[in-house]
């Protein structure tokens, strides 16, 4: 087995609150989990969209933020030693001859498991792409949604679009190596951290950086090589900024992605499941949380927790065939308390 190949009981796609709590319910039954998530940390939407926003409908927790909920869940499942694979997207799922599943990610990680649980919420977070004609021709060569190596931008004329922290941070970080940086943003205000904005404005004042209040309007160039970025201003119409590279930073949006090709029955981009085991149309693949649908479905975190508990019972039957599942409470079972590491 190579370094990035693993075997486990259950692979969970998605490390949001529902995926995390599934680790708990599966863990009580003695099942081990690996989790895959496209983000660089646990929490899913709670971490990416509303880490600071209050949540009031978690039973017995009158108020917590998205980040607090994530942190508490991580604490709660810590004893079960889940293995996380962050910044990876579940890409391909194949059935092995022995009945288990072989899942590969876009980063080449391979995991063999008895059960697959899809807890992917609204799908994978992917960069929001500007609506520009011919954009695909430049993606990967001249248009990038992330910076992997600062050196790649040495002596380049870079246009950075957006007004958040990603836009401002990269403008400032690439400034020393790039030939020229132009920030394109639709207004004179920024949502980015005030210190970054101040730094950027001082560079613009000194003539070391350009800032255009405008919107992206088009791309110029050929063969995947950008030569200019067309922008549209409110007052002066369109003009072109000479550029080798464009970095659009408009945040993330959610796409179902490769899961759509797993051969599961879908209804309006949601995975249909039964309400006894939350199993999909394919045996031993389950779907819990916002990504599933069934009559009466409510997209609530607490519903996802419930779905995880019932799913775990069925997952146990696949992972430990022939073994009888003993139903126990954490309050009274010394066996469960040992698993939780409290005894």
């Amino acid at each position, binding site marked *: 087995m190579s370094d990035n190949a693993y075997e486990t009981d259950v692979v969970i796609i998605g490390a949001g609150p529902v995926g995390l709590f599934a680790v708990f319910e599966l863990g009580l039954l003695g099942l081990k989990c690996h989790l895959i998530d496209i983000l660089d940390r646990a929490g899913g*939407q709670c971490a990416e*969209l*509303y880490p600071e*926003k209050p949540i009031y409908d978690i039973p017995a927790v009158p108020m917590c933020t998205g980040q607090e909920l994530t942190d508490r869940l991580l604490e709660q499942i810590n004893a079960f030693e889940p293995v996380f694979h962050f910044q990876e997207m579940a890409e391909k799922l194949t059935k092995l001859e022995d009945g288990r599943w072989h899942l590969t990610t876009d980063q080449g990680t391979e995991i063999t498991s008895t059960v697959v649980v899809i807890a992917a919420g*609204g799908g994978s977070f992917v960069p*929001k792409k*500007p*609506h520009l004609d011919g954009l695909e021709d430049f993606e990967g060569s001249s248009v990038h949604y992330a910076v992997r190596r600062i050196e790649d931008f040495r002596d380049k004329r870079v246009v950075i679009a*957006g*007004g*958040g922290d990603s836009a401002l941070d990269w403008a400032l970080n690439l400034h020393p190596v790039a030939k020229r940086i132009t920030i394109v*943003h*639709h*207004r004179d*205000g*920024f*949502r980015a951290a005030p210190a970054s904005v101040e730094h950027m404005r001082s560079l613009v004042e000194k003539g070391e950086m350009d800032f255009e209040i405008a*919107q992206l309007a088009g791309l110029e160039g050929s063969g995947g090589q950008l030569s200019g970025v067309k922008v549209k201003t409110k007052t002066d119409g369109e003009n072109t900024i000479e550029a080798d590279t464009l970095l659009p930073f*408009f*945040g993330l*949006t*959610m796409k179902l992605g490769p899961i759509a090709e797993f051969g599961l029955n879908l209804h309006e*981009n949601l995975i249909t499941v039964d309400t006894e085991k939350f199993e999909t149309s394919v045996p031993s693949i389950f779907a819990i949380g916002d990504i599933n649908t069934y009559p009466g479905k409510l*997209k609530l975190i607490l519903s996802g927790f419930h779905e995880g508990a019932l799913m775990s019972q069925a997952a146990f039957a696949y992972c430990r065939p022939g073994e009888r599942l003993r139903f126990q409470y954490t309050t009274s079972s010394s066996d469960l308390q040992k698993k939780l590491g409290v005894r």
Partner: protein
Amino acid sequence: MKITVTDLDGNDHVIEGKAGWTLMESIRDAGLPIKAECGGACACATCHVYVDMDWIDATGERSEEEEDMIDLALEVEDSSRLACQIELSDALEGLKVKLARDAVL
């Protein structure tokens, strides 16, 4: 109350709005394909709409939080709003809006 929502193909849909609901909730309830990924928390900008010029004053101004979030929207116009931040009231009977490309599923 009646609200007219124009889709990306330019087709008008007259939907039923409810006072006290947000515009996003009404559009979603009518079955139109609005993303509204964060569910109305002003945390994502995927319920981006353009308010008809005749209705700009009646729908009010963007809050600072909404202004910041609109930084993540594409093709922003003066009439851009996040539909989750417009609360419907009887004063908005007849409101007209158009879905933005980045708000549609």
